[in-house]
């Protein structure tokens, strides 16, 4: 399916990350937006890439430091007396 991509699409792809992060100069953004208006596949790639980044930024519950891990860490660092209260 990738054979539909012409040079403009490849250029856009190369700047996609920076475009999403708002790190491109205005004239380049304008060029990209002009291309996006007429290219559905690139719009899909942009939307789904943005969404991908949103999704990974939703924190997952199991990623907090478990209490027993924190306890062992503090003991290893000889910080026992600072275990409680947290913070």
């Amino acid at each position, binding site marked *: 399916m990738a054979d539909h991509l012409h040079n403009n699409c490849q250029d856009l*792809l190369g700047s*996609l*990350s920076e475009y999403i992060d708002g790190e491109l100069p205005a004239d380049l953004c304008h060029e990209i937006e002009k291309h996006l208006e007429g290219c559905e596949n690139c719009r899909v*790639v942009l939307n789904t*890439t943005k969404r991908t*980044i949103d999704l990974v930024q939703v924190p997952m519950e199991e990623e907090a430091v478990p209490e027993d891990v924190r306890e062992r860490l*503090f003991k290893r660092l000889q910080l026992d007396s600072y275990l409680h209260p947290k913070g």
Partner: protein
Amino acid sequence: MSETQTQSFSIDALRAGDRAEFARLVDAYSAPIYRLGLKMLGNPQDAEDVLQNTFLNALTHFADFEGRSSISTWLYRIASNEALMLLRRKKNTVNLDDFQPEDAEETPLPEVFVDWSTMPEDELLSGESKKALDTAVKKLPEALRMVFLLRDIEGISIRDTAEILNLTETNVKTRLLRARMFLREHLSTYYSERLTREEKKDG
């Protein structure tokens, strides 16, 4: 971005061996460092090793910290080195990822063009979806995964990520783009199969 990065710590106190200040630093950075370990190594035991080794290492090297970078960048550098070292030590088999040219010229082109971005939030965040995302992150080649975790999960700037990993900013940008494209492709495949499955069910 976590609130960790907005806290400040006294380097002088840390150098002088102030235990309370060190405990405060440990609590502030434990979560992101543990998370980095988990995502790089893929299991809680190794993540705990990364966490402990990072702070043990920091403790013995406060004297060497020159303050040219922030304490956050310095800690992340120790943590990412610990994670990569452990990863290398644990690899008994040859991994195909090692043969992928990390910064070759071309980023693979997208192949799946299904727009799943408008799917309802609760479907995108279901348990099954999260698992698919986690699997995709685990499949990222290490060199890309580390950049992606620092930049997109921890919200660290391109410049600081480059400093942490001793890469150029251009390298970081290339790897970040590639990591995002890789994940997008995996998620697109997953969601398009799911949409097809649901259409069949409804029809």
